[in-house]
């Protein structure tokens, strides 16, 4: 049944094209005050004193909160989504540049900023720990004296070490490499912010907040503030992008809440861009050593990886709690392996906390990069074409469902078909011929492949949770007497078009128009509980809940229709959007007629109390596993090191496509991410702890001139366990594309003997690589 699926123009666009979106900073409440955060200029320092008296005396200032003020409320520290704690306002010391130290509340946003200048903080500087590789050295500065483990957060491993080592020992060829996945930042165009409105009389808090997970946020706000959860309403308005950056709870949100509780007035806090880049969640920051083992004729045998994960000053990684390295251990990629093993050590440094976030499917991005770089290196070592090596080792369709060596069961796939399609679309053989001709002329053209498998849609109850909350989502579907429907969902669009896609899901099940389904989201008072949107989980989990609720409505409608037609329910069949009498299909009713009857005085059969409304809570039986084959063609100027992405061919298989237009848009976005992450986006620090990437002049994002016109292809391998066979697409291209870009650039540089170059492949880094003088790209330590 796919009647309502297809490239439908989006319902949300009507407001956005008119400038009538409702983003956090668009909201103004009567009497609203404006907050601003004083941040630490130092990466590591003991706080000797904070003197806010001059700021408090500023005529426009209504309140100033310091760490001590929050401590009196028990709000100086908050739990992170990964079970650590994080300072809301620093009390003992500051642990990264940009850390929150004090919060000023004033009558306008400019005055609040002015008053920040009036706060005197006496810092006693401490040596900062900026290089994760030295975090575990004896004598390294200790970031977290409040914890017993020094700078070590965790040691974690997955896979079978003995079997992996044995496979390596027996291999003809072993290739290994150190590689950095540099610290990056999702940088949604809208920064983070909140408006807290605490009503002292009723003890009720309303928080408008840039949150991808309003229900999970509410649980945390209740825990931190001590307010009962039913007295807290979290509203997530239109979000100007998120990409994971709007999953965590940030200190600014808590400051706004505390300030509203202190002043009895609504308080708005919206961060500026520097605050966004320097203090809200980062992504990646993995120092990896990977090895791949193979036979001489190109059969991949095993993989192993050792990772040092830089988590910054607090462990605030937004991922399922039982997985300290996220889903990195789906690092066996898309290939048949005999064994695999990985070890990950997480460490604290004096950098901003966070981690995972940025359309990465909980670290599968890092894993895909590792395995796809290693595969290319292996191809080079063996003298094989990288496409041929991949084709030889890809899992075959008949192997699904496939349980990989680290325990994940891939649901479905036809990998060779996707790779063949990508190669055909690219004209791969012709590209290789062109490359040879250009090389003969001294021109450096690269062709880079990547093949990726994601695991998305977290996740099955019992296998994964966040802070004890199962990763299941609810959906409530009401059908009004006229057959118009309202679907309330727990997940939160940041541009993915839920108002349209979810309407299509319901419409398809009920045989009505998507125009007749309104989707309510982003308000905990109006929607059922669920864990929100990240890890490409909206369609796999919440979308499934919507479909289950809709099928319940349809089954109830069947009973009502049977009463209307005075036949047995078993005599009815759902055909072309109506319950029809078997053998007499002209006799039947659609949802609108049945809804009318369900609300009428018609005597209803047993099992129907009245109305058609239904709800569902969906517990996914497994992750879904989208996959794809990408090919990136680049031209590199050896004189300047500049990389131009000439073509990007992307074949994605995300199962059944509900709205192909939206799916393609999401792929476009992720390909731009791949270009940005591979070529320019990285958060860099100097050795004294200064963040050197605190603005869009320093943290470069790809523009229309760097992004080519993508060439998209699709295959459809439905997920066998999702109600409509969909798998999720929101992160695929971000996961899969960086490896293709880097493989392409390294391929272009092969004549120089280059076998690897770390991201970001800026002109400077490429040029130095060509000169044989590559530098570390994660720190300005060269």
């Amino acid at each position: 049944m796919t009647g309502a699926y297809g490239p439908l123009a989006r319902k949300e666009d009507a407001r956005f094209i008119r400038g009538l979106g409702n983003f956090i900073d668009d909201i103004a409440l009567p009497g609203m005050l404006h907050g601003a955060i004083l941040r630490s200029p130092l990466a590591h320092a003991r706080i000797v004193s904070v003197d806010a008296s001059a700021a408090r005396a500023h005529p426009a200032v209504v309140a100033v909160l310091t760490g001590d003020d929050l401590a009196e409320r028990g709000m100086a520290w908050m739990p992170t989504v990964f079970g650590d704690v994080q300072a809301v306002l620093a009390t003992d010391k500051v642990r990264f540049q940009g850390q929150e130290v004090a919060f000023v509340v004033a009558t306008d946003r400019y005055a609040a900023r002015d008053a920040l200048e009036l706060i005197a903080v006496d810092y006693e500087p401490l040596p900062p720990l900026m290089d994760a590789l030295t975090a575990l050295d004896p004598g390294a500065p200790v970031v977290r004296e409040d914890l017993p483990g020094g700078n070590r957060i965790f040691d974690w491993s997955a896979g079978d070490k003995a079997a992996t080592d044995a496979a390596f020992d027996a291999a003809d060829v072993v290739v290994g490499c150190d590689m950095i996945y540099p610290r990056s930042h999702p940088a949604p165009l809208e920064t983070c912010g909140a408006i807290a409105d605490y009503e002292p009389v009723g003890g009720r808090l309303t928080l408008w907040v840039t949150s991808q997970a309003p229900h999970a946020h509410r649980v945390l706000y209740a825990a931190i503030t001590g307010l009962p959860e039913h007295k807290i309403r979290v509203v997530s308005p239109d979000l100007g992008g998120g990409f994971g950056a709007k999953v965590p709870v940030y200190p600014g949100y808590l400051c706004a809440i505390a300030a509203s509780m202190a002043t009895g007035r609504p308080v708005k806090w919206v961060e500026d861009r520097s605050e966004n880049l320097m203090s809200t969640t980062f992504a990646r920051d993995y120092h990896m050593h990977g090895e791949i083992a193979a036979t001489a004729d190109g059969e991949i045998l095993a993989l192993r990886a050792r990772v040092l994960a830089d988590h910054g000053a607090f462990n605030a990684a937004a991922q399922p709690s039982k997985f300290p390295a996220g889903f990195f251990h789906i690092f066996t990629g898309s290939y048949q392996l005999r064994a695999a093993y990985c070890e990950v050590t997480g460490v604290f440094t004096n950098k901003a906390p966070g981690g995972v976030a940025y359309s990465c499917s909980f670290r599968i991005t890092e894993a895909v990069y590792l395995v796809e770089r290693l595969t290319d290196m292996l191809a080079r070592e063996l003298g094989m074409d990288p496409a041929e090596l991949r084709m030889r080792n890809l899992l075959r369709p008949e192997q699904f469902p496939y349980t990989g060596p680290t325990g994940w069961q891939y649901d479905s796939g036809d990998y060779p078909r996707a790779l063949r399609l990508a190669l055909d679309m690219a004209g791969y053989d012709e590209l290789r011929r062109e490359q040879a001709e250009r090389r003969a002329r001294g021109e450096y053209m690269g062709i880079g492949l990547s093949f990726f498998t994601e695991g998305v849609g977290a996740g099955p109850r019992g296998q994964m949770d966040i802070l004890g909350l199962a990763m299941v989502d609810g959906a409530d579907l009401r059908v009004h007497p006229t057959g118009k429907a309202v679907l309330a969902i727990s997940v939160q669009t940041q541009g993915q078009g839920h108002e349209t896609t979810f309407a299509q899901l319901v419409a398809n099940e009920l045989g009505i128009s998507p125009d007749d389904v309104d989707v309510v989201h982003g308000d905990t008072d109006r929607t059922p509980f669920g864990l929100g949107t990240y890890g490409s989980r909206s369609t796999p989990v919440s979308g499934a809940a919507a479909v289950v609720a809709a099928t319940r409505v349809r089954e109830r409608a069947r009973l009502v229709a049977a009463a209307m037609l005075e036949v047995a329910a078993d005599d009815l069949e759902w055909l072309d959007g109506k319950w029809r009498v078997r053998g007499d299909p002209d006799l039947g009713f659609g949802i609108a007629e049945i809804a009318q009857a369900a609300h009428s005085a018609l005597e209803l059969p047993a099992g129907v109390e009245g109305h058609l409304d239904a709800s569902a809570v969906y517990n996914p039986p497994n992750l879904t596993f989208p996959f794809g084959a990408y090919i990136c063609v680049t031209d590199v100027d050896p004189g300047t090191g500049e990389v131009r992405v000439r073509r990007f061919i992307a074949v994605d298989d995300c199962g059944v496509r509900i709205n192909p237009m939206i799916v393609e848009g999401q792929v476009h976005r992720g390909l731009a991410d791949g270009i940005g992450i591979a070529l320019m986006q990285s958060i860099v620090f100097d050795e004294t702890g200064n963040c050197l990437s605190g603005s869009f002049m320093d943290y470069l994002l790809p523009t229309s001139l760097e992004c080519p016109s993508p060439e998209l292809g699709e295959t459809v391998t439905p997920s066998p366990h999702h109600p409509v066979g969909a798998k999720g697409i929101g992160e695929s291209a971000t996961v899969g594309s960086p490896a293709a870009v880097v493989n392409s650039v390294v391929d272009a540089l092969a004549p120089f003997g280059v076998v690897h170059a770390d991201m970001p492949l800026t002109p400077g880094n490429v040029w130095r690589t060509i000169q044989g003088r590559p530098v570390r790209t994660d720190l300005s330590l060269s």
Partner: protein
Amino acid sequence: MKITVTVNGTDYARVVEPRLLLIHFLRDELRLTGSHWGCDTSNCGACVVWLDETPVKSCTVLAVMVDGRRVTTVEGLPRGGVLDPVQEAFAACHGLQCGFCTPGMIMTARWLLDQNPDPSPGEVREAISGQVCRCTGYENIVRSVLWAAKHHDRAGGDGA
């Protein structure tokens, strides 16, 4: 300081601080929240409006600098309640996702088509290259502008 400015055809007289940015004047004083603030450093272009007939990044223009001049924002683009073809185009071609960059992109696109009614894809890319979109990879924005160029005489749609 006292300023008088015509915004979307309406005259406003206001007393403002000399340091007030145009984007904040539009958003906070006039409550025209269609233009967005995104970066502070005039890199992202979410704040693009027209000063007289020229697109400017209103985060780096002071409100006092527009005294006696005309400002047009996305809210002022429809004529007689009818959407501009560029607005229609963004909806028709999926030229937006989160919608945050959209008003600025639309203002630049309209200006481009006024200067160059039949631009090439490369000219469109050049025109929007001072603005950032984090959702579309720009491809569907380019398609939207080209669609609008083709449908320049179209008027009267409701856009979605």
